[in-house]
C-alpha cells in the first residue's frame, strides 16, 4: 500500500508461496481453518507424549517400592507431563477449535490478523519442540510445573533442564499471547452484520473471555520466568536467599498467572458444552445472558484468588481467609452454569450421540472436580489436603473430566465440519464409556489417597501406608484410559479415510458453521450472513420460531455473492519463529547463534512488513 517502488521492487522479488496443496501450502498457510487443523494434529501428538509420561508415572506408582523409574527421572516425568499436557496439549487443542470455528461462528472470512495467527502456531510448535528436545540434550527440568526457586536455581538444579523449560514456555507463550490479541479483535470486530455481542454463540463468548485472561495473565508468568532465567544465566540474585530474597515472590507471580490459567483451560470447555447440549436437546441454551455474565464473572474473580495455592507458605490468618472466601465465591457463577446446562437438557429431546455423551460426561465429572475444589478452598483443612493426591484428583477431574471430555465432545461434534467425514458413532460411544470408567478408576481413588496422607510428587512409598490397593486401581484405570484413547485414534484415522462424507448439517445444528459445506471452503461464506437472531441457522430452519417484530432470518438478506479476496500464504511467520527458536538454543549454547537467530527473526519481521498481502481473488463455487 504505502510501500515505495524501491521497497516494493526489492521485497517483491522475494519468492512468494504459490503452492495451494501439499507440504508448502501447509507451511505457509494463513488460513484459519488450516491453522486450526495444524494445531489439532500437533496438540494431539503432544497429548500422546504427555500421556505416555503419565503412564510411566502410574506404572512406577502401581506398587510400593518399585524401581521401574529412577527418582530423578520420575521428577522429570511429572514436570514434563504437566507442562506438556497444559501448554502443549489442552491449550492448543482448544486453540485448534478457536481457530477453525470462531470465524465461522461469528460469520467472518478469517481471523483479524491471519499472518499473526500463523505466527501463533509456529511459536507454539517451536516452544513444544524446544521443551521436548531437552529429553535428548541433557534431560528436562525436574522442578515441577511451577518450577519454584530456589530449587530451580542453578545451585540446586545444575544442567540446562530448567533453562529449556523456561525458554520453551517463553516461546510458546509468545504464540499464546499473540493469539489472545487476535481472537479478541476477531470476535469484537469481525462479526457478520447483525451478529451483536448478545447474539454470539457461547463458544465465542468463552473464547473472548479466555483471550482476555491470556492477555492479562501471560505477561506475569513471563516476568516470573525471566527473573528465574536471569538468575540462572546471568547471575542476578532475585531468588538468592543470602542476598535477602523472598522466595514467595515467585510463588505469587506464578499463581497470579497460574490460577487464571486453569480457567483458560476450562472456559473454552464450558463453551463447547454450551454449544453441544442445545443441539442434542433441540432446545436453546437455558439462560443465555446469565451464562454470558457468569463467564465474565468467573474470568474476573479468577484474578483475585491466586493465593489459595499458598495457604501453607505462612501468609497469616487474615490473608488466608480473604483468599479462602474469594475462592469460594467462584462456586456461585460456576454453579449457575451447571444448573443452566441441566435446564437446557430439561424438557428437551435428548439424542445420545458420542458428542453428547462426552458433554454429559463433562457435567458429571466437572461437578466432582469443582466440588473438591471448594473443599480445597477452606484454608484450615486445606493444609491437610494441600499437595496430596487429593489435589491431584481435584485437578484431573476438572482438567480431564472437564477440559479433555469437552474437547472429545468437540472432536465428535465439529470433527465432521473440520475433516469432511463423519466419525464412527459406535466406536465413539465405546471409547466414551471406556474413558469414563477408566477415568473414574484412575482419579477417584486419588481423592481418597490424599485423605490417607499420600503426598504428591513422590516416586515411591512404603508398603503399610495403606496406599497399595488404591494406587494399583489407579494404574489399572490409567491403562483403561489408554485403551480408550487408542480406540479414538483408530476411529479418527479410519473415519478420515473411509468414513461417510459429512453433509453440511449432520446434527441439525443451530449455528452458522452448519450453514456451509463440510469441510468449510477457504472463504467460509460465499455470501456473508446477515444475522437476525441467536441460533441463526436454527431460526432459519424453523421460521415459525422467530418472534414478534423480529424479521424472520433468511438467506435473502445475506450479503451479495461476489468475488472474494483472500490473503495468500507467507513464509514470514515461519521465519520469525524459526529465528526465535534458534535464538533459544543460542542463549544456552553460543551467543553468536543467539544473535543470528534474533537477526533472522528481525529479517522475517521486516519482510513481513513489506512483502504485501499477496491477495488472491476467488470466485465462490456457488455451493450455497
Amino acid at each position, binding site marked *: 500500500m504505502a510501500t515505495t517502488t524501491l521497497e516494493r521492487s526489492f521485497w517483491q522479488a522475494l519468492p512468494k508461496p504459490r503452492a495451494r496443496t501439499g507440504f508448502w501450502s501447509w507451511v505457509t498457510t494463513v488460513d484459519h481453518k488450516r491453522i486450526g487443523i495444524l494445531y489439532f494434529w500437533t496438540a494431539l501428538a503432544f497429548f500422546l507424549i504427555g500421556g505416555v509420561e503419565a503412564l510411566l508415572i502410574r506404572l512406577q506408582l502401581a506398587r510400593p517400592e518399585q524401581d521401574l523409574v529412577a527418582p530423578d527421572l520420575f521428577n522429570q516425568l511429572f514436570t514434563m507431563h504437566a507442562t506438556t499436557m497444559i501448554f502443549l496439549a489442552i491449550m492448543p487443542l482448544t486453540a485448534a477449535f478457536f481457530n477453525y470455528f470462531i470465524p465461522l461462528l461469528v460469520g467472518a472470512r478469517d481471523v483479524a490478523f491471519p499472518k499473526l495467527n500463523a505466527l501463533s502456531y509456529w511459536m507454539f510448535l517451536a516452544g513444544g519442540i524446544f521443551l521436548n528436545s531437552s529429553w535428548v540434550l541433557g534431560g528436562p527440568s525436574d522442578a515441577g510445573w511451577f518450577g519454584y526457586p530456589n530449587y530451580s536455581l542453578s545451585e540446586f538444579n545444575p544442567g540446562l533442564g530448567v533453562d529449556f523449560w523456561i525458554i520453551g514456555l517463553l516461546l510458546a507463550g509468545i504464540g499464546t499471547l499473540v493469539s489472545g490479541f487476535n481472537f479478541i479483535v476477531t470476535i469484537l470486530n469481525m462479526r457478520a452484520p447483525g451478529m451483536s455481542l448478545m447474539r454470539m454463540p457461547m463458544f465465542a463468548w468463552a473464547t473472548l473471555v479466555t483471550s482476555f485472561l491470556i492477555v492479562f495473565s501471560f505477561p506475569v508468568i513471563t516476568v516470573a520466568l525471566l527473573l528465574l532465567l536471569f538468575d540462572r544465566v546471568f547471575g542476578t540474585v532475585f531468588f538468592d536467599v543470602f542476598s535477602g530474597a523472598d522466595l514467595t515472590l515467585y510463588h505469587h507471580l506464578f499463581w497470579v498467572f497460574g490460577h487464571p490459567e486453569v480457567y483458560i483451560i476450562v472456559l473454552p470447555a464450558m463453551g463447547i458444552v454450551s454449544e453441544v447440549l442445545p443441539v442434542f436437546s433441540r432446545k436453546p441454551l437455558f*439462560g443465555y445472558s446469565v451464562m454470558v455474565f457468569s463467564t465474565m464473572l468467573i474470568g474476573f474473580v479468577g484474578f483475585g484468588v491466586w493465593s489459595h495455592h499458598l495457604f501453607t507458605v505462612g501468609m497469616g490468618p487474615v490473608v488466608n481467609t480473604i483468599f479462602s472466601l474469594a475462592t469460594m465465591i467462584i462456586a456461585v457463577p460456576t454453579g449457575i452454569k451447571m444448573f443452566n446446562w441441566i435446564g437446557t437438557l430439561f424438557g428437551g429431546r435428548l439424542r445420545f450421540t458420542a458428542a453428547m455423551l462426552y458433554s454429559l460426561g463433562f457435567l458429571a465429572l466437572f461437578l466432582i472436580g469443582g466440588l473438591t475444589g471448594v473443599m480445597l478452598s477452606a484454608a484450615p483443612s486445606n493444609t491437610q489436603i494441600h499437595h496430596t493426591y487429593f489435589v491431584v484428583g481435584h485437578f484431573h477431574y476438572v482438567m480431564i473430566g472437564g477440559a479433555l471430555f469437552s474437547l472429545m465432545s468437540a472432536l465428535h461434534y465439529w470433527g465432521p465440519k473440520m475433516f469432511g467425514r463423519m466419525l464412527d458413532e459406535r466406536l465413539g460411544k465405546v471409547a466414551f464409556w471406556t474413558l469414563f470408567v477408566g477415568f473414574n478408576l484412575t482419579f477417584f481413588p486419588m481423592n481418597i489417597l490424599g485423605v490417607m496422607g499420600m503426598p504428591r510428587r513422590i516416586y515411591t512409598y512404603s508398603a503399610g501406608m*495403606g496406599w497399595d490397593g488404591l494406587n494399583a486401581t489407579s494404574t489399572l484405570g490409567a491403562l483403561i484410559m489408554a485403551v480408550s484413547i487408542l480406540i479414538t485414534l483408530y476411529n479418527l484415522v479410519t473415519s478420515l479415510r473411509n468414513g461417510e462424507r459429512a453433509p453440511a448439517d449432520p446434527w441439525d445444528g443451530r449455528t452458522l458453521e452448519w450453514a456451509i459445506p463440510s469441510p468449510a471452503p477457504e472463504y467460509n461464506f460465499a455470501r456473508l450472513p446477515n444475522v437476525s437472531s441467536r441460533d441463526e441457522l436454527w431460526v432459519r430452519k424453523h421460521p415459525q420460531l422467530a418472534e414478534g417484530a423480529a424479521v424472520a432470518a433468511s438467506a435473502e438478506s445475506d450479503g451479495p455473492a461476489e468475488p472474494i479476496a483472500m490473503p495468500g500464504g507467507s513464509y514470514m511467520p515461519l521465519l520469525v519463529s524459526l529465528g526465535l527458536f534458534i535464538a533459544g538454543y543460542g542463549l544456552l549454547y553460543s551467543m553468536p547463534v543467539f544473535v543470528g537467530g534474533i537477526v533472522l527473526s528481525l529479517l522475517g519481521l521486516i519482510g513481513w512488513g513489506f512483502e504485501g498481502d499477496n491477495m488472491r481473488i476467488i470466485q465462490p463455487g456457488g455451493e450455497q
Partner: protein
Amino acid sequence: MCSVKSAMWRGLILGGLLLAFLPSQAAMAAPQYWLDPAGPVAEMQGRLFLLTLWIMIGIFVTVSGVLVYTLVRFRAKGAAAAGSAPGGAAARRESAAAGEQDLPPQIEGSHKLELVWTLIPFLLLIVIAIPTVRYSFALAADPEGDPIKVRVVGHQWWWEFQYPELGIVTGNEMRIPVGRPVELVIESDDVIHKFWVPKLAGKMDAIPGRVNRMWFQADEPGVYYGQCAEMCGTHHANMRLRVVALPPAEFEQWADNWGRGPVVTSEAERQAVERGRQVFETRACFGCHSIEGTAARGVAGPNLTDIGLRTTLAAGILENTPENLARWIDDPQSVKPGALMPRVGLTDSELNDVVAYLRSLR
C-alpha cells in the same frame, strides 16, 4: 438410553463404596490417615474437612440426581432418536424431519429459577465460610498451656529438630510429651520443604530465608508418621519423619539422658564402642555429624546423639536395626542414591565398631 442411567447409578454406587471406605478399618490402620486425628489441631482441621465433604456429597447427590432424572425422562423417542444411531445420513435426515413435529418447547430461561440457584449455593458457602474463618484464626493463635518449643529445620533430605530450651538437637525423629502443645518454628537450610505430620496437624512450609510458625499437640502416646510435602529434589519421597509422643515422665527421662554418652551392658561391648567412637572421631563422620559430649561437631548431617533410640534411619526409610545401620554406613548411596552422605569406605571391623558405638547411643 438405559446405559446412561445404569452407568450413572454405577458411578454413584462406586463413589458411595469408596466414600464408605473412609472410616473403615483399612483406613484407620494407615499411618498418615488424618481423619483419625491424634491431637486438637488435626481434629479441628478434620472436622472442617468433613463438614465440607458432607455438603459436597449433598450437592453431588442432588445435582447428579436431577441430571440423571433429566437424562432418563427426556431422552428422544422414536424417529428423533435415530439421529444418534449410526444409521448414516438417511436416518439423520429422517430424524431431522421427524423433529419438526416433535420440537420441544423452546424455553430460553427463567429468572426465578436462576435466582434460586444463585442463592442456595451462596447460603451453603456461608455455612462453610464461617468455620473457615473461625478455625483459621483459632489455629493461628498461640496455644494455651505450657508449650514446648521446637525448631524444625529442613535439609535435603532429612529433618533437624532443635529444642532451644532443653539444649537438645536430634534428627528425623521428634520426641514430644503427650498433652503439651508443641510450638514449632519452621525453617530451611537449603531448598523449600514442607513439614507435615498428618495425624497431628496440616502442613507448613520450610522456606529458606523465612521463619514460619505453627503448633500441634498429641493427646495419646504413639508414633506419628510424617513426610516432606514439597518437591525438594531427588529424595523428596524419602524425606520422612516420625513424631514420638511420650508420657511426660518418659519425655523428661529422655531429655535428661540425652547426651549422657553410650549405654553398654558388657565389657566386650564397651571396648567395641570405644573403638567405634575413635573411628567416628577420626574418619570423615565427625565432620558432618555431631554427637554430644564428643569431638564430633559437624552440622551437614543429622545429630546422632540419640541415634540408638530412633526407630528409623536415613529419614524414615529404613528400620533402625544393626544390619540396616551397617548397610547405610557402608554404602549410603546404594540405599538412597544421591543422598548427601558419601561412602566413607570403612573396613568391616571399623564398620562393626561404629555400628556398635552408634547403637549404644540411647
